[in-house]
């Protein structure tokens, strides 16, 4: 089975407060620590687990991003992905989710993917619209919000998270599968993994290699326009107390005062 996982490099959500540049209206990437999206680590782990139990399968990580995304790809390889493709081109800057999906879909079509893993949404933009758009461009089904996945023959079955529990959902292959964050135990790179990552195939592609016109992607192809970036309203701060053995009493007093008990 030819398996793929779409990944993204983002400002580290655990250390960086993401900011938008009021002039370019894009995410500030310079001077901040960039990492492989933690959600993608779960997704890669799910994909590796399936590859290892599927026999005769290969897993490739695909990323559209700036040249710095090299490092995120190295991490994916160190985790156990077999090969990596990075599509990087100045014309791609400012792409919206549709432009991103178009580029990824074009590469995946040429590759002849059987199964494409994506995270439900990225941890910076959160639109969650790329996987479904990839599926539409490829004309294949999408299985979304998966917390379990099984492949048998030409069918994939997932447990799809819902408000009330989950649905058991199946589709034909090829398909796009999105993984719900935290659904699979993360695989951490071992020293051996890090060493072997250097020898794994790593392809870099430009937009011309992909075969798309610059007008379809980047800022030129974006269908939305940011008019203004403002400051969020801060919530008024309340009272902060130190626990001196009476905290439970004081919280209960607070609840009673506002008739919350």
């Amino acid at each position, binding site marked *: 089975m030819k398996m793929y996982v779409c990944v993204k490099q983002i400002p580290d*959500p*655990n250390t960086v*407060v*993401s*900011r*938008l540049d009021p002039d370019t209206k894009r995410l500030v990437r310079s001077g901040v620590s960039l990492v492989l999206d933690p*959600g993608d680590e779960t997704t890669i782990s799910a994909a590796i687990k399936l590859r290892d139990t599927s026999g005769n399968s290969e897993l490739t990580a695909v990323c559209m991003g700036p040249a710095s995304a090299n490092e995120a790809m190295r991490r994916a390889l160190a985790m156990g992905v077999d090969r990596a493709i990075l599509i990087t081109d100045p014309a791609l800057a400012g792409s919206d989710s*549709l432009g991103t*999906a178009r580029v990824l879909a074009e590469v995946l079509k040429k590759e002849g993917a059987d199964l494409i893993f994506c995270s*439900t*949404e990225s*941890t910076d933009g959160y*639109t*969650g*619209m790329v996987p*479904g*758009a990839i*599926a*539409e461009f490829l004309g294949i*089904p*999408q299985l*979304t919000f998966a917390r379990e996945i099984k492949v048998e023959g030409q069918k994939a079955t997932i447990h799809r*998270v819902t*408000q*009330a*529990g*989950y649905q*058991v*959902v*199946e*589709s034909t292959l090829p398909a796009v599968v999105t993984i719900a*964050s*935290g*659904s699979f*135990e993360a695989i951490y790179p071992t020293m051996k993994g890090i060493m072997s990552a250097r020898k794994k195939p790593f392809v870099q592609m430009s937009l011309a290699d992909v075969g798309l016109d610059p007008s379809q992607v980047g800022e030129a192809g974006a*269908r*939305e326009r*940011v*008019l*203004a*970036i*403002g*400051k*969020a*309203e801060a*919530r008024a*701060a*309340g*009272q*902060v*107390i*130190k*626990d001196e053995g009476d*905290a*439970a009493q004081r*919280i*209960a007093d607070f*609840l009673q005062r506002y008739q*919350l*008990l």
Partner: protein
Amino acid sequence: MTKTIWTLVEIENGQPARSSLEVLGKAAKLGRAEAIVLGAQAAEVALMLGEYGAQKVYAHADATYDTYLTLPATDTISDLLQTRKPDLLLFPTTYDARDIAARLNARHRLGLITDATDLQYEDDELRVTVPWGGENVVTATLPHGPGIVLARPKAFGVEKVASNTAEIETLNSPINSASQSIKILDRVEVASEGPALEEASIIVSGGRGLGKPENYKLVEELAKVLGGAPGATRAIVDAGWLPYSYQIGQTGKTVKPTLYIACGISGAIQHLAGMKGSKFIVAINKDENAPIFAAADLGVVGDVLSILPQLIEEVKRRKAH
């Protein structure tokens, strides 16, 4: 000029879903609201939508939509888009509507804005408000004609308008069999005690500060004695303590309870985005510099593991009186 706005109305237990009615009400305020309702119970639900602001309802009563996800609904809306020209599609942010929106976006090269908390027209230009990363608020527009906006849950209230009857157009075109490829085999409801997280008026939520998964039971216990629902941060969901359904935040559920008690939660921006609309926020954390305190009405600097058992007993005692 009056704008025509389409909304997708989802059906839950034979009723229009609350999140659908929220966007329908907003659409009615912006212009002419038209609803699309699909599924075995579409005809009955269509009749209920006038009083929530719909002037017209497109209804296709076919059980295929209930069994096969995403593609049949995408095809039907796509067909409607060929012959009618709405100004905007305003969808609720639900699991199913997100999937449909993503495909419509790609099929018709529509513009798409997600996570909207407000929208309006100013001088004929659409202006959509999107909170971004906790510090910024973005105003965006769709300059290339009709597009899709996905609204954040609870961004708008549900309002009934004066008894209004919607015109109903019954759709009956056959559903393409090639689009019946994502099949629901089974639906499993995971029983949970007490109210659902989205509906609860009291939420007690836990984070990394609880130390280890076993301590989460204190959060559940406090939620139980208060008659509320337990929730969690992404950090402990990612760590595997709890299923995704507990997750509150920008990724996960957006909640607006009357009371939110944050236990051992530092207050990462992505968590605050999902709960700062709560009426009262109480936070317990050992780090006095935790960002959660900036949002809390009552902040307690202390050991959550010693405070919670006392608080559970204190609430029980006061409730008994």
